[in-house]
């Protein structure tokens, strides 16, 4: 995973020096740009260092080798929901909430109620009923 690490991580070596140069050029008076660029460096560093730590933990993967075969990557990749109605319910809750902001605050509380139902439904979808484990 070295390539992924560097792909994101090298951003640090660009954005942080650029932020310092920008700081000098604006006499350290324009903070939106300085902080913005510094924290873009932080964004790159965050993803880069996470990928670096993960690379240490998982070791060499088939993806890292030129001569790997597709079947070497077979096996459980993670938990993926085949389909679900709950994102739609949550979307409706958000739409209701925004309607509340536009029309009247009282509608927002209805949206919050639907959101609660949607979140509980989504989070526990694979923990109850047929999927209880």
């Amino acid at each position, binding site marked *: 995973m070295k390539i992924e690490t560097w792909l994101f991580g090298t951003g640090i070596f660009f954005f942080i020096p650029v932020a310092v140069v920008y700081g000098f050029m604006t006499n350290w008076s324009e903070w939106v740009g300085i902080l913005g660029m510094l924290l873009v460096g932080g964004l790159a560093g965050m993803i880069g260092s996470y990928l670096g730590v993960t690379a240490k933990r998982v070791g060499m993967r088939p993806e890292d080798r030129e001569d790997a075969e597709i079947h070497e990557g077979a096996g459980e990749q993670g938990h993926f929901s085949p389909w679900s109605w709950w994102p739609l319910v949550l979307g409706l809750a958000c739409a209701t909430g925004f309607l509340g902001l536009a029309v009247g605050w009282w509608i927002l509380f209805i949206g919050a109620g639907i959101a609660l139902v949607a979140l509980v439904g989504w989070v526990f979808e694979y923990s109850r009923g047929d999927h*209880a484990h």
Partner: protein
Amino acid sequence: MVSVGTVVWLSSELMFFAGLFAMYFSLRAASGEMWAEETAKLNFPFALVNTIVLVASSFTCQMGVFAAERLQPRRGGGAFDFLRWGMIEWFLLTFLMGAFFVAGQATEYAMLVSEHVSLSTNAYGSAFYMTTGFHGLHVIGGLVAFLFIIGRGYAAKRFGHFEATSAIVTSYYWHFVDVVWIGLFLVIYVLK
């Protein structure tokens, strides 16, 4: 897979807070006198205690993650046998500490409003409440997430990697919110 997505999303959250920090510093650079006057009303010891509780909650959260990685949802000993606590006990403690922080923030807001610093008073009020307020909303979101993860822990008959993964990504979020608070605390209460 879930954890990569969480980290990428958290890095975008960093940019959200970058906007808030930038707003704070811009307003501060534009009106230094107002800052000197208004920051004098802040209660530093109170905020420090609140900060310590929030930082400590990151450690209890991490203990919960270690328990989740052992695939141990509940405690194996007595209620105060910390070393044998499971994920649920550690996360409940983390929840209480996070709730303490939010309650402290609410108290602090009330104290500041009584000293005539509100969202609409002046630029300082806006900057203070927007930055700490958005952070507070993130903490509340984290508290809700902890309740869901604890719920999953109780719902699972066999606590497995599905439950552990969601516990781990929730801890990423919590640590992130904690680090952002350390930044906010240093900027608002120490640097002033």
